């Protein structure tokens, strides 16, 4: 396996997916969808701060922030009836949390295709997750440019 160099948390998620069967991967994605971290209160009260990811079929909104120590945090919200999208957002929220800006930008945009979900979920759907990463990077670029 020609695995890309990924940050440890994200690499662990990928390895967990690759260690199980195709059907089990859907179950694991479902678990991620249940574990999508809730928005912090300051964001929950201000949904207009979040940006819609147009690449996803279901309404998913994300905001990616850089804290004072220079660490990246991605927050996302998606409806219960869109578990696939919630699962994708949850993987990113958990796998990218706390990365330095450099480490964050080093994550390849097409990393979702390394999760072994292509057959179980379909490439079209995975593109939604690629879109989330692209949008998150744009948000961080904007955050750095205009602190």
């Amino acid at each position, binding site marked *: 396996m020609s695995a890309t160099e990924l940050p440890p948390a994200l690499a662990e998620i990928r390895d967990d997916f690759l260690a199980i069967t195709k059907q089990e991967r*859907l*179950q694991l*994605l*479902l678990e991620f*969808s249940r574990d999508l971290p809730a928005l912090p209160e300051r964001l929950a009260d201000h949904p207009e701060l979040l940006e819609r990811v*147009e*690449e*996803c*079929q*279901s*309404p998913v909104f994300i905001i990616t922030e850089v804290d004072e120590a220079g660490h990246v945090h991605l927050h996302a919200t998606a409806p*219960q*009836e*869109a*578990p*696939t*999208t919630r*699962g994708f957002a949850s993987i990113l929220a958990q796998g990218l949390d706390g990365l330095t800006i450099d480490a964050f930008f080093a994550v390849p945009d097409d990393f979702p295709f390394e999760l072994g979900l292509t*057959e*179980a*979920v*379909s490439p*079209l*759907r995975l593109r*939604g997750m690629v*879109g989330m990463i692209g949008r998150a990077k744009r948000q961080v670029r904007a955050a750095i440019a205009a602190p």
Partner: protein
Amino acid sequence: MSVARDDSPAFAGYAHPERLVSTEWLAEHLGDEGLVVVESDEDVLLYETGHIPGAVKVDWHTELNDPVTRDYVDGAGFAALVGGKGISRDSTVVIYGDKTNWWAAYALWVFTLFGHEDVRLLDGGRAKWEAEGREYTTEPTVREAVDYPVVERDDSAVRAFKEDVLAHFGNPLIDVRSPEEYSGERTTAPAYPEESALRAGHIPTAQSVPWGKAVAENGTFKPVGELDAIYRDGAGLAEGDDVIAYCRIGERSSHTWFVLTHLLGFEGVRNYDGSWTEWGSAVRVPIVTGTEPGEAPVK
């Protein structure tokens, strides 16, 4: 071994009321010999979050589509797929799903391509079942695989290809997408990703009748009188018409195909599943922008 039909008076006016079942009917008939319930959703994981007890899942993207060619599975592929889910040729299949049954109607249409005789929709779909607080389970459904005969797909009766649409000018076309997609302001449904069409607009002469017009607020189909007003009086369809419906990839137009064929009784309705993702990227096909249907191209 067909299961009794739903004689609900709500369906009485439809041309083929036997194609619908109500949530009440389904709740009473779950477990009936010969009945297989199928869930078909846009979201590939929704079934896993909870489904109607005993239902099996059919995914449009990973199962009904051929993984390589842009086409549906062939006769052998369909036989393996549905036989593997415990569906026999004589099973009564009731399909339901998310998004007001878009993908359920799409799956029903694909079953029709293979001539599966008794296939019905759950009126109101997943949302109505859920709103009524009916039972869901996360228990995986175990159904013994059965032999389903290999029946070749018949694309002639209910499926239209691009060439068929080009030869169809002069006959009614129904564009079931949103008004913004029809006029050419955008190539995908509002709140959907922009994808895979290089041009925006509609096929010349197509009437705009967004799919959702056929649906009441609770997600069930409107009564036949209201449907007549929309499709006959509004869009000008008349008895004996050959109609082609299209959308973006053929799922919303499957829904309208169901309405025209099974609820209103039109016999020559085809679904153009290539739809806008094909037409909007094809070279030198005519396109009209704006809110008017436009003229048929001179042949």
